């Protein structure tokens, strides 16, 4: 789960990390009031789930409350990489002497988290990795021991030569590890970690990604989910226990299993069509899940053909057939449906479908071709 900068900074402050104060608003007049409360220069920052906000004009400096109002007015409603800005963070501006980077990501090839720091902060770390890889320092973390004190110190001296600053930075890295581990994050980033002219360190931007699979033990973090930022259909799917991602095409896909769902999308493309979505109805699929799935697919107005691809293992084909019959009787469908089922209880499923005027195919390639043709 992605969270916003202001939420990540809240987690930072809860772990005693030096994130500057800030308040979030969806109203330009309120942004101006917040700026007046802080006094002095503020930064108005778009809160959207994407990087590159600065380049897109989503981060603005404001010298006084009136400028803060204008900045918020310009940013709110702005489209950044297809996402609408609904909230801005207003935070006191910090003077910058230099910018560094500190982050933790999961290294899949080593089965463990890896700490990364770089004195080259303020830009995308992937860019640094390409242009100046020698400026990135890595420390794999043994999950049984966490970030050891000498590792924190070693990383800190990669950022700062002065012992006083290095000591402060080592403390920050230790707290960052605790925030990462304590929130079951899969990624955390301070970029930039700013050194002020007074030699203080501040986490000016904060990014965190939380492990969806661990949210069951963090009800407080689950509440940070920005339901507004989710696509309507994706929210509905999540609530129905389906895995759904909207795409740009017109062939709606309903498949059991994530790998088969991806392979089905790929095959739609192979035969000249465009998949409208990724949708995995999961393992033990009750008829109800199929009904929800069809509702979600048909909510998308660009869908002009629907393809079912079911390989019955734990999923019973007759359950899916019953779901299709029930959904089509409940919903007013004017989109052609192509059904491919094979595996557990296939015969029963075919009978149910035949009795209700559907035909089903057993070959995946044939079914995909027909669904692509039906989309026109």
């Amino acid at each position, binding site marked *: 789960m992605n969270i916003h900068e202001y939420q990540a900074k809240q987690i930072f402050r809860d772990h005693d990390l030096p994130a500057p104060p800030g308040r979030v608003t969806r109203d330009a007049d309120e942004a101006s009031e917040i700026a007046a409360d802080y006094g002095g220069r503020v930064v108005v920052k778009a809160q959207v789930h994407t990087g590159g906000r600065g380049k897109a004009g989503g981060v603005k400096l404001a010298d006084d409350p009136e400028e803060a109002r204008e900045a918020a007015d310009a940013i709110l409603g702005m489209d950044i990489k297809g996402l609408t800005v609904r909230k801005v963070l207003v935070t006191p501006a910090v003077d910058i002497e230099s910018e560094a980077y500190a982050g933790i990501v999961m290294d899949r090839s080593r*089965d463990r988290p890896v700490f990364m720091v770089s004195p080259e902060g303020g830009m995308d770390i992937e860019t640094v990795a390409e242009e100046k890889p020698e400026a990135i320092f890595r420390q794999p973390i043994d999950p*049984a021991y966490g970030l050891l004190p000498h590792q924190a110190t070693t990383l800190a001296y990669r950022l700062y030569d002065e012992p006083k600053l290095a000591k402060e930075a080592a403390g920050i890295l230790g707290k960052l590890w605790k925030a990462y581990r304590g929130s079951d994050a899969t990624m955390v980033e301070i970029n930039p970690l700013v050194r002020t002219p007074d030699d203080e360190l501040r986490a000016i931007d904060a990014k965190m990604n939380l492990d969806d699979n661990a949210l069951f*033990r963090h009800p407080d973090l689950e509440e940070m989910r920005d339901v507004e930022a989710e696509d309507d259909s994706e929210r509905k799917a999540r609530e129905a226990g389906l895995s759904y991602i909207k795409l740009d095409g017109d062939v709606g896909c309903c498949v059991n299993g994530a*790998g088969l769902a*991806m*392979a089905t999308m790929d095959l739609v493309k192979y035969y000249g069509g465009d998949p409208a979505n990724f949708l995995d109805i999961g393992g033990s699929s009750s008829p109800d899940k199929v009904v929800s799935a069809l509702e979600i697919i048909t909510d998308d107005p660009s869908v002009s053909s629907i393809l079912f691809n079911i*390989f019955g293992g734990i*999923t019973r084909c007759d359950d899916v057939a019953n779901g299709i019959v029930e959904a089509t009787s409940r919903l007013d469908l004017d989109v052609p449906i192509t059904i491919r089922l094979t*595996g557990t209880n296939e015969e029963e499923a075919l009978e149910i479908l035949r009795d209700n005027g559907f035909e089903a195919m057993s070959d*995946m390639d044939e079914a995909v071709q027909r669904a692509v043709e039906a989309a026109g």
Partner: protein
Amino acid sequence: MSILIGDDTRLVVQGITGRDGSFHARRMREYGTNVVAGVTPGKGGQLFDDEVPVFNTMAQAVEETGANASVIYVPAAFASGAIYEAADAGVDLVVCITEGLPVGDMTRVMPYLEERGTRLIGPNCPGLIVPGSCKVGILPGSIVEEGPVGIVSRSGTLTYEVIHQLTGAGIGQSTCVGIGGDPIIGTDFVDALEMFEADDRTEAVVLIGEIGGTDEQVAARYAEEQMETPVVGFVAGQTAPPGRTMGHAGAIISGSEGTAEEKMRVFEEHGVSVAERPADIVPAIQTVL
């Protein structure tokens, strides 16, 4: 011969009295798997289906029955605990079917298992099957047939699809292994390839990968440098958008890393035959056999 499991597998089902555990314990027994025990804390002393003793702990189950493998069907919140327990009880192989384990838990599980020499398959996997002999997990026994092709896959139903097409073309399988769709898994492609290479019954391997991570790329290099057995590769997710998790927690293109295109290119560079569609796997296997 086969890899990982076979006629000498003595299996414990962790979570045998649960909905999924009991359903699949029956399917595995029907298939011929020697299920020697079940474990559900608090239900010790019962008999599952009048025959299989249920124990409160893995330690008891292993002591009493000499079990050497376990399969886990417990809810995600308890699954890493079940893995630790199985490792401490001393089984050689643990197969975790459960989906949804926190990745942080897996980072701690892995070194624990390595210290004890326990092999893990999964989590979030369909398990494995040796046609005609033994199955551990949820793969449907009806679609497989004995034969020379080893299958290793990150996926579930896509694997069934491929097995179904192979069987339909008269090509049987030696062992089919679903290694799981999570970012951190116990047994990876290279581990499975190494075992298939050493298995005299396996004459070719189908590797079914998907977007995310670099395991396919590492496997391609391994296949070129260390294997004589030919490998046919497929990668799901050629149309997947970057930055989105495609159902499996591990199926995500991060930045520019882990695309299907890149994986297929690396396959080709290292002599792994690339199947563009699942239906291309059968002819590719026919060519190499």
